[in-house]
């Protein structure tokens, strides 16, 4: 168990703080923000959520710095980044951190979702936490793919061509979507400006709004944890649960839920216990990004060349499974079927998971009806990624 020593603040600081507190209500705010019960077991797994938040903040931070140099124009985008890479001592580092934190972010979000999925934390009354989180995941994927288009090097250009062409296979409205995104039939100057607007304004705005909702909902219902936090140990489970609910600290007991899962067996304070672990994980992740951003940086291919005879386009690694799916679903109807029906319905099924998995069971092995498709999907993603790597990067 961690112990934290407290020390009185200096008198001058205290009087200054009191002045602010009287006017802004800081203490109240800090108390509301920090003092909250969380389940005691599995705390390291709960750090994934806060790590996601830290990484998204890092994305905003580094992204704003990139805007100081980057020009969203078909003619100058590559030149501005070339300047950033070669003439600016720290430019490549910032860009590297933007890229690597995006990579780490996608991994961490994936783990966060997996944790929530396995522990069935999305069940009543936390359905909307899952829905908002699921939409956030797809927003981040959208940000990642639009971000990959912006440099207007060969990689970015061909990513733009392929990604903006995918809607074309949507029945009826596909061609219109492609034309609207590209600003014409071909990838041109308007395409870049539109993608830039989506990457800088549209998706981040939605992202911020949903993060607010996600955090509010988390605070309202409290961290669920996993079924281990709710198991009973005595011969009289009813009495044990009643005692647990009576002694629970806010936000527990969670309302409108089976009694057994209303309050965890044992809780610890968010501050300092959980916050300490959150900080450790965040420091490690940011340090990794800091180092990789410096060592590996962000690659910049040759200037976009629509007339290349040799360039082999390859997607970012997190889109490899989808790219391989495109290989495996040939020709018009299968593309429409494979990409839009399977992936679209699959994504929808993922977001709407809490609305059809409503059984009281929380243990993974007791709910094979979601565990089996979930594992199938996870294995399929890994297998498709490996096959994609083999196809694109094989010798």
């Amino acid at each position, binding site marked *: 168990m961690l112990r934290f020593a407290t020390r009185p603040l200096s008198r001058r600081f205290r009087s200054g703080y009191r002045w602010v507190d009287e006017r802004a209500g800081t203490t109240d705010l800090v108390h509301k923000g920090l003092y909250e019960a969380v389940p005691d077991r599995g705390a390291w797994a709960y750090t994934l959520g806060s790590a996601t938040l830290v990484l998204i903040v890092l994305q905003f931070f580094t992204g704003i710095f990139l805007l100081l140099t980057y020009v969203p124009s078909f003619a100058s985008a590559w030149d501005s980044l070339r300047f950033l890479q070669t003439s600016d001592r720290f430019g490549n580092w910032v860009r590297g951190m933007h890229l690597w934190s995006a990579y780490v972010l996608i991994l961490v979000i994936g783990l966060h979702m997996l944790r929530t999925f396995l522990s069935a934390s999305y069940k009543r009354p936390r359905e909307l936490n899952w829905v908002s989180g699921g939409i956030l995941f797809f927003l981040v994927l959208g940000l990642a793919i639009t971000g990959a288009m912006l440099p207007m090097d060969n990689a970015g250009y061909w990513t733009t061509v392929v990604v903006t062409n995918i809607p074309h296979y949507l029945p009826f409205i596909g061609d219109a979507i492609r*034309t609207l995104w590209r*600003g014409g039939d071909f990838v*041109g100057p308007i395409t870049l400006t539109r993608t830039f607007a989506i990457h800088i304004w549209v998706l981040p705005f939605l992202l911020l709004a949903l993060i607010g909702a996600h955090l509010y909902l988390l605070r309202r219902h409290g961290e669920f944890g996993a079924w281990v936090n709710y198991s009973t140990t005595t011969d009289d489970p009813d009495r044990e649960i009643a005692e647990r609910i009576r002694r629970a600290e806010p936000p527990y007991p969670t309302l409108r839920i089976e009694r057994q899962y209303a309050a965890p067996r044992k809780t610890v304070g968010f501050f300092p216990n959980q916050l300490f672990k959150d900080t450790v994980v965040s420091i490690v992740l940011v340090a990794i990004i800091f180092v990789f951003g410096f060592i590996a940086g962000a690659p910049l291919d040759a200037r976009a060349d629509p007339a290349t*005879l040799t360039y082999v386009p390859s997607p970012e690694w997190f889109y490899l499974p989808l790219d391989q799916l*495109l290989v495996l679903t*040939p020709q018009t109807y299968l*593309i429409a079927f494979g990409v839009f029906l399977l992936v679209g319905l699959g994504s929808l099924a993922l977001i709407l998971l809490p609305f059809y998995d409503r059984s009281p069971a929380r243990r993974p092995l007791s709910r094979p009806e979601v565990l089996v498709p979930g594992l199938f999907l996870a294995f399929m993603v890994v297998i498709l990624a490996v096959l994609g790597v083999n*196809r694109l990067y094989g010798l």
Partner: protein
Amino acid sequence: MLRLTRRRMVQLTGLGAAAIGLMLSIPAIGFLLSPLFQKTRETWVRVGALPDLTVDQPKPITLKVPSGEAYDTTPVDRIAYLVRKSDGATLVLTNTCSHMQCDVHFDPTLQQFLCPCHGGLYDVHGNNIGGPPPSPLPQWVHRLEPDPQTGQTILFVKNAYDESI
């Protein structure tokens, strides 16, 4: 003094909000949809004399064609594969895969066009023979005219594909 019930108040506010929404969305949506109604500025480019071609041996040439969309007027380098068929006709194929519009490469050992993105295969005449492509390689819209002075065959290319892909 104006007397309003709560219900009336809510109705009026709702109407006002709808009016604001309408006023904002008419220009915004119109602006957003404008690319659908813009016409491409058609341009014919004189590429030059048709080079000597071996039958069924695609030969890549670089064209300078403006896309003619939006404010884009600068000619961009594009590729055309010239293929002489055995009956004497000449194909002016684009290098744009009909699947996801990647750049196809010609593989001389297999005598096939290969799309590196998703493994689409085309024969030397641009017919899709394997993999995901739903249709043959599109051709550039083109015409061949004899030069009145020299008698050479001159290739003209328009900034359009002769098949919507």
